């Protein structure tokens, strides 16, 4: 993409802004807000990681060592909620805030005050979610949500105040995400640089556009489902209680109508950024731009109509089973188009292997395992064996850790020099990559076998035949967890200083964001560039 005009510098706008904490509380600047999202995400990543390391420590050997089963159940569900709503979604929104205006040639997001509010709803929500842990310590209530992140009724109707706290946390997180999504949709539709038609939109922005629509469509359903749950808990309604004419499975339908698109909400922004990274480090144009855009749209639409494959074992009529099986399998088609385009982009390029490229390649390979095991999980009869077992746990960590978290890391290493104006340490980055990839496989590969051998999910103690693989998995998890400190250290060093980054950080980088200085001026594009 070429621009006819390069923006002039943006000095002289920062001096009437508050400083210190007030700067962050009142900021409406997309870059400040993006930074806050990313920082919040990193903190939550470590909090969620800490929780699961406690779980893995307990599972190192058979028998109950450190945790009571009640507390164990609280940790697993909150680990998931914090990783999904606290780490992955805010990270994606952080990218959107930082990158969308830079990439489409806009001065800022379209709705800056809404943007600020959207972020500042997150800390209260995270507090609500985790407060019951602390309250229990002081003898109030019986701890946090202990139903797993899925809130399945009637277990969640039985649960203590942790469930109520989690319901309100989900409400607030949902409002925050919907506001963020509306802002992103409005920005993309209205603030593109002249000449940037929809079919010239960078793929990252396309990925986020579909994500934003999915969020706006599905989050109200989740909010409705948990509100009905709240009603059942406190106001004697019977939406999910069979004795009063309700149906517990209705909750699962409502939850997964949100929950399945949620998977793609977490993945689409990453699928959007991977082509940029591949194209940069292969020094070759993205292969199949249009095919990728149409695949995003197809996946977005399909994700809305396959939800029931998350509870095949709950019992459904045969036609429903067949429908959800085949519709789920059909997602593999647009996904295969994406894989094809990624590999074709690499083909006959001139590759170099900087940290973002390593993460992108690791993402493709490991996410491939998630996709392929997802294909077999779609088979209802085989799913009877995989479901509720560690096979599923391994599958969705291949999807969400490599697809989600490693995708986010790809983006962070790729754009961090643009954001901070300094280069990160390539040596630490590579160390971080290799430790992450090896320990990730050490953690989750054994879990496939555990699942096949018959170990159910969410149990605090297990039969002796599962001992060896669990021990390996725990060792892997601890290496994986501690390796992430390198990531945090590298980011910190990069913010504090380091080699100066050019405007065009990477030799092969293409796109509007690389035409602004690093770091970009306060009002990113004061004069919109013209896209040819």
């Amino acid at each position, binding site marked *: 993409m070429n621009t006819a005009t390069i923006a002039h510098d943006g000095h002289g706008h920062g001096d009437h802004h508050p400083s210190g904490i007030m700067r962050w509380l009142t900021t409406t600047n997309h870059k400040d807000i993006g930074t806050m999202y990313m920082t919040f995400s990193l903190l939550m990543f470590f909090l969620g990681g800490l929780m699961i390391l406690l779980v893995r420590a307990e599972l190192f050997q058979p028998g109950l060592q450190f945790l009571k089963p*009640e507390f164990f159940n609280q940790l697993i569900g909150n680990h998931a909620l914090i990783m999904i709503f606290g780490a992955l979604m805010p990270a994606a929104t952080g990218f959107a805030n930082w990158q969308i205006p830079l990439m489409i040639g806009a001065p800022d997001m379209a709705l800056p005050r809404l943007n600020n509010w959207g972020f500042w709803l997150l800390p209260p929500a995270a507090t609500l979610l985790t407060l019951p842990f602390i309250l229990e310590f002081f003898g109030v209530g019986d701890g946090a949500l202990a139903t797993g992140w899925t809130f399945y009724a009637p277990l969640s109707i039985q649960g203590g105040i942790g469930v109520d706290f989690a319901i309100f946390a989900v409400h607030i997180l949902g409002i925050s995400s919907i506001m963020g999504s509306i802002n992103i949709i409005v920005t993309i539709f209205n603030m593109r640089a002249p000449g940037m038609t929809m079919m010239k939109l960078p793929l990252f922005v396309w990925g986020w556009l579909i994500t934003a629509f999915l969020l706006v469509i599905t989050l109200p359903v989740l909010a409705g489902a948990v509100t009905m749950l709240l009603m059942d808990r406190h106001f004697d309604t019977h939406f999910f209680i069979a004795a009063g004419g309700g149906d517990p499975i209705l909750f699962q339908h409502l939850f997964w109508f949100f929950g399945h698109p949620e998977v793609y909400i977490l993945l689409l922004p990453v699928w959007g950024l991977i082509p940029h990274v591949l194209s940069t480090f292969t020094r070759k144009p993205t292969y199949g731009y249009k095919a990728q855009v149409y695949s995003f749209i197809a996946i977005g639409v399909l994700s809305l109509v396959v939800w029931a494959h998350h509870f095949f074992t709950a019992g459904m009529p045969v036609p429903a089973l067949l429908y959800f099986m*085949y519709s789920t399998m059909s997602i593999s088609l647009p996904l295969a188009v994406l894989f094809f385009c990624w*590999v074709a982009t*690499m*083909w006959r390029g001139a590759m170099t292997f900087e940290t973002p490229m390593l993460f992108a390649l690791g993402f493709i390979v490991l996410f491939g395992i998630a996709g392929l095991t997802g294909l077999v999980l779609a088979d209802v009869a085989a799913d*009877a064996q995989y479901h*509720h077992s560690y096979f599923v746990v391994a599958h969705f960590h291949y999807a969400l850790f490599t697809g989600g978290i490693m995708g986010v890391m790809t983006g962070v290493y790729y754009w961090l020099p643009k954001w901070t104006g300094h280069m990160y340490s390539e040596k630490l980055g590579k160390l971080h990559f290799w430790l992450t990839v090896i320990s990730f496989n050490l953690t989750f590969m054994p879990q496939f076998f555990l699942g096949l051998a*018959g170990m159910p999910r969410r149990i605090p103690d297990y039969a002796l035949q599962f001992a060896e693989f669990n021990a390996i998995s725990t060792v892997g998890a601890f290496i994986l967890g501690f390796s992430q400190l390198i990531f945090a250290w590298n980011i910190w060093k990069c913010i504090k200083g380091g080699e100066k980054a050019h405007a065009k950080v990477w030799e092969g980088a293409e796109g509007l964001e690389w035409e602004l200085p690093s770091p970009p001026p306060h009002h990113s594009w004061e004069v919109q560039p013209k896209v040819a």
Partner: protein
Amino acid sequence: MNPKESRRPFLGVSSWLLSSNTKHQANQVPSLTTERRPSLLRRIGLLAAGLFLPVLPALADYKFNFPEPATPLARDTLHMHNEFMLIITVLFVVVFAIMIYSMIKHRKSVGAQPAKFSGPTGKLQWFWVLVPFAILLFIDFILMGIPAFHAVIDMEDTQTKADMVLKVTGMQWKWQYEYPDSGIKYISTLTTPRDQIENKADKGENYLLEVDNPVVLPVGKKVRVVITSTDVIHTWWVPQFGVKRDAVPGFLRETWVKIDKPGIYRGQCAELCGKDHGFMPVVVQALAEPEYAAWVEKKKAEQAAAATSSDRAWTKDELMAQGAKVYNTVCAACHQPNGQGLPPAFPALAGSKVVNTPLLSADGKLLPDTHVFRVMNGKPGTAMQAFKNTLSDVDLAAVITFERNSFGNTQGDMIQPAQIKALR
């Protein structure tokens, strides 16, 4: 990335091989364990483990595939699983090989010049773009789709030619088994001692997978299994049977099993159902037809004896002794062996307001929200179930009497099984 690591889940590939497991065979009745040839699969597994995990001892315990199937459904599933794993392994290896080739050949450091193409050009290229798509369509809906279709139809056909019905009821945290044909009904709970779980004693061979009353089924008969729950959702799962079905409160779900040969088959609850989700195993004892018939007769006689015993007058000592037994198997998981409970979710019985209510009204009627009422009818929305559905008259009378006179509760009174019978 680590390609060798990544390929490991797919080692269990070999559709002609069905057997892979060792532990589950060990779990079976010894006399029934016949030939045990180390399968090719297992050897590959061992080789892989030897290659990639050289530091780990006890290789015999590593398993890379489903346990040995014991029903036609499980055999089908394993077959399909092996076939699918083969397919996805091939897909993975092909795509990964292309990537590796590209990463080696098309790198800047070996002087590669970047090409300029950004999509297929010309008919030949379009052909090569569409070929993988067509292959995937074929795999999805023909190669995988057709066997999957038949497997689903087979799995869901619970009623055709069913020989008998077993009703399974999940409850926090035990299973109840009911044989509608013969009227047999009993509860099955974990027997692994607390000391083993808390690492104060050595763990037994069937740690966490052992129960007091296993469900007994005949071999070679198609058993229609009807599943429900009294409180939250549970899942009845025996890996060797290849079936897993949720127990949904207020609804009936069904599946079926037809066990090939006698033996003990072990599984677990697979849906998070609260505190002791990890401690409600499923143990199935499969018997040959004559032994099964004998077992049914024996069980029926036992139940008849229990029914008549509820008509006679029991002494307080008898009730206290029986009550302690019932309390420890049924109530102690929540209310704790010392009656202190785990408040606020599971209230203490020691000094409890409910326990220390009057037994019955002056004219022998049930009063609402009293001790007897709560034990019989439960408390909706909590783990406290309506035990009149699952416990016998004797057990109810015994446990109520026991609770009123233990943990520092000194009501001094007792209730007779006959009284409970009249209250039902």
